[in-house]
Structure formats: structure tokens, C-alpha cells
């Protein structure tokens, strides 16, 4: 059902790896969310490429002149699905950013290593405080 070579796969995989790497390697929570976005976009592109039919046009029905062959349409379903996926992605991003705002208010930083250190200090304090 899909045509073309494998180029779109490579693009998708490159984007996916970029996103994953950003999530793994970056300490800044906002950057992590950006990585997450890139990761999700790669999947959206993957779906869009699934729906692409070589030589197909946008799937908009039009009045056919008598004798005119029906045009080759792209598969619209993956595209429609991606509308939902984009909505999900937006919701995740929004919620993630909202959490970052709250984290910033509660901790005063959005760097993962600083957060970890703050939590560790707090725990150490509590355990020594509890022991005394």
C-alpha cells in the first residue's frame, strides 16, 4: 500500500533517536519535554508516510467529469488518526510544562541533577532528624 524507498524510515528513525537521546542526556526538564516532542513527531511522520500513496492526491472528493478516471487518493485514515495523536501530544506537553512550572515553584530549579541533590539532602536531613 505504500510506495517509495526507505528514506522516510531513516528520517523517522533519526528523529526518534534524536528525541530519545535528548530525553536521556539533557538534565533540563524543559529540554526533556522538547525531546519527548521530537520523539512523538517522528511517530506522527511515520504514520503520515504510511498513508502516502505514490502519485496520490489529497483525498478530497470532487465531481468527476464523465469519462474522467477516478484520481488516486492518498489513504486518509492515518492522517486522521494523527490528528488524535497530535492532540494527545499537545496534552502531554501541556501537562508536562505545567508540572515543570510547579516543580520550579517548589524547588527553585528545573535541572534534574539539582533536583536530585535537593531531594537527597532533604531525605538525609529527615533520617538524621528522625534518628536523634
Amino acid at each position, binding site marked *: 500500500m505504500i510506495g517509495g524507498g526507505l528514506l522516510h524510515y531513516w528520517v523517522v528513525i533519526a528523529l526518534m533517536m534524536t528525541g530519545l537521546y535528548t*530525553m536521556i542526556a539533557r538534565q533540563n526538564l524543559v529540554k526533556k519535554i522538547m525531546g*519527548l516532542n521530537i*520523539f512523538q513527531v517522528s511517530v506522527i511522520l511515520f504514520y503520515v508516510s504510511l498513508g502516502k500513496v505514490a502519485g496520490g492526491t489529497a483525498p478530497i472528493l470532487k465531481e468527476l467529469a464523465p469519462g474522467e478516471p477516478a484520481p488516486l487518493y492518498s489513504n486518509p485514515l492515518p492522517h486522521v*488518526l494523527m490528528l488524535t*495523536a497530535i492532540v*494527545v501530544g499537545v496534552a502531554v506537553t501541556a*501537562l508536562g510544562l505545567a508540572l515543570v512550572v510547579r*516543580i520550579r515553584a*517548589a*524547588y527553585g530549579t528545573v535541572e534534574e541533577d539539582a533536583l536530585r541533590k535537593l531531594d537527597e539532602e532533604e531525605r538525609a536531613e529527615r533520617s538524621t532528624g528522625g534518628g536523634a
Partner: protein
Amino acid sequence: MTHLPVLQIALPLIAAPLCVLLRHARAVQIFAVLVAWACLGIALALLGAALPGGAISYELGGWPAPLGIEYRVDLANAFVLVVVSALGAVVLPIGPGRRGHAVPPRREYLFYASFLLCMAGLMGVAITGDIFNVFVFLEISSLAAYTLIALGRQRQALRAAFSYLMMGTIGGTFVLIGIGFLYQMTGTLNMADLQRLLPAVQQSRSVHAAFAFLTVGIGIKLAVFPLHQWLPNAYSFAPPAVSAFLASTATKVAYYLLVRLAFGVFGTAYVFGALGLGALLLPLALLAMFVGALAAIYQSDLKRLLAYSSVSQIGYMILGLSFGTATGLTGGLVHIANHALTKGGLFLAVACIVAQTGSSALSDLRGLSRRMPWTFAAIAIGGLGLIGAPGTAGFVSKWYLVLAALSAGRPEVAFAVLLSSLLAGIYVWRVLEAAWFRDPVQSAPRGEAPLRILIPTWVLIGASLYFGVFTEWTAGIAEAAARQLLEGAP
């Protein structure tokens, strides 16, 4: 009656924004609780309708499958629906917690709205027969869960929610990729249709990749070892009611989904015969059982201890799945209900403790059993359930797992199950020891927890005892559901 399947989802889904409109804390609470109980009623009605053995199919908007979205209720998912809605109905009345929590009373309606959304999402995953719909509901429930977890009273709850969000989204996206591959190979999203079309293309690498992505993606939501790392923080920093609900339902629904895909969509022969999924899952399950239990032993906080114990219990469920046999699957499915009741009850008991002391650290439990006898009796019974002592629901599950291991010719696995029960005995003992045999600290509370929390706790713990003895509603249904799944009718 004919619209029951859609009502099951639509009711909480519509009720959630209504909560936001209603705003008044008490009114919203009553409304949300009523909705939750209505959901339970619908789920029970659906289970009753599915009991004869057939599947109820409901076509959304009148579009017939495979083009339209189909809701399909058979024994397995009716069973899951009942578990999810029952836990929701029992836990929701507790509310977001009173003492120093992060939700000011005038914003409590948001808690109830999120909770209903989470329920709707989880039930949606179970009920839908459309695989893309599964992804959507999975994300609805996850988004609601992130929100709920962030409501915990410590600031670590925010970090826990954020980590869960990152990991959960990776999992969700993996699922999405898997669905994409499936669609690419078959051109359909309807699960029944997929089951029909897949055998023709199952030798292709895309289908292998689809299954791998789906397994790993669901594995994250299911907290399969070593993808469990979001779970301990999420459960230990969330508000008590949320921990109780999520711990007993979220991972169970993911488990159901994996079972449905493995047995119902891809087919037992393909998944366990050709791909050898069992060889992958069995070591992970064993590792989860032991690492989870060992980690639980070393925790100094009761909620965290229970969270790691969940990792270990999820290991049992995966173990049941990994044999790919009816007995194993029965063990896994029945553990959905049994562990939901036991762990839900235990987390609610923690809610009782937190309501009275403001802490769930083991060192603050010292001598508390004298002040809160009912709460700690519940913890003792629930703990026995985790160990799998006879007479509790946990025994029933372990019984099937041991039986499955033996009939699969793996006595050493059966032995491992029993051995990890001993580990469970140790961490349960740590709790009981602190509560029973230590002298109370000065700041110990005056008395028993409020009935508002204590009654739901005992409802769940009592149910776990009941189902430890009378098993036709748990093991009986699970067995029939497992048979239905294995025979291949989705």
C-alpha cells in the same frame, strides 16, 4: 440495555467536565461517587451479559466494524471492567485526603474530575475492540494519572509525576508505533479483523517489530521489570486514594491489554510458539518477583514498601502469562482481581495511618497497632494475602501459578514462587513487627482512623478474604475467560 457498553465509558467521560462545572466540593464529591457506583452497576450488568460465554459487540455511532469503532465485551474484559469500576467506587469516596494535601478544598472538584477521567480511560482500554482507540484511552488514563499523582502533599510528588509522564509517554508512543506497523501490514485497526488478517502476514518482520514495540510499550505501563522505575515514586508520593486506585487498577489494565494482544490478536501459537515470548518474559518475571520483594524489604516507608511489593506481584502476573497456558493465564487473570483487592486495601490502610499520623514511615508506625487495631488488623490480613497464605485471595492466585509452573514442567519455577513468598513474609513482617512489638512514639495519634476511610479499607480486605475461600466469582470467571481467550474468540 443495548447501550450499556458505550454508557460504561461515556458516563464518567461526560461526568468529568460536569464536575468542573459543578465546582462545589461536597456536591461534586457526591456526584462523582454516584457516577462511580453507576459505572460499577453497568460493569456488573455487562459481566452478567457476558457470562453465558458470547461477546457483546457495540458499534459506535452505528458504523459497523471494521470501519467504525467497535466496543466488544467478553468475559475477560468484563472481568477487568468490574475490577476497575469496583475499585473506583470503593476508593473514590475517600477523596484527595485532608491533612496538609496539595489540593485546597475549593479546587477539590479537579481531583474528582481527574479521577473519573482516569477511570474512563482505564475502562476504555478494556472495553474497546479498536486498537487505535486503545492508544487513545491509554493516554487519557495516563494523563489523568499524572495529574492525580502530582496532587501528593510532598514536592517529590511533582517529580514523580514528571518522571512518570516521560516514561509513560515513551511507552504510549511505543504502542503507537506498534499499531502503525500493524496497520501498515493489514490495513485495519479492528482487533477482531486483525486477528483474522494477521496469520497471512505474520512471517514479516514488520509484524515482529509491531509485537516487540507493543510488548515493550505496554511493558512500561505495566511496570515490568526493568521498566518499573516510575512505579515506586509514583505510588509512594501520590495521595493515598490515588495510590490505592492506581496500584490496584492501572497496571492490571495494562496486563489485560498485553494478554488481549498476545492471545486475542496475535494468537497463542504465534506469540508463544513462533516468537517464544515466554523465554523473554519468564526471566523478567522471576527477576521482578525477587528484586521487587528484596527492594521492598529494604524500604523504610510503608507506601514505598507496598509499591515495590507491587513490582514483585506484577512479576507473578507476568509469570502466569509467560507459560502461555490456560492455567497460567487463569493465575494471572485471577491475580488481577485478588491483587487489586489486597493491594487496594493495603494502600487504603496506609491512608488510614496517614490520616491519623501524617506519615507512613515505618519508624512512625511503632506501637500503632494498639491505637489503631482495626487498621493494623487490615494490614495483617492484607499482608498475609501478599504472602499468599491460605484463606486469603493471594493463595488462590499462587495456587494457580504453582500449578501452571508444575504442569509446564518447571518445578524450579514453582519453587521460586514459594521462595519469593518467603521474601514477602519478611517485608510484611517488618511492618507488623514495627506496629505490634515496638513501644509507641510519644506523638502517636489518639485513636482509630475515621470510618470514612476505614470502611472502604475493610470492604476491600473483607472481599480479599471472601474471595480467598469462595472462588467461583474470581477464579471461576478467570478460568472461563482464559479458556475463551485461548480458544481464540476475541
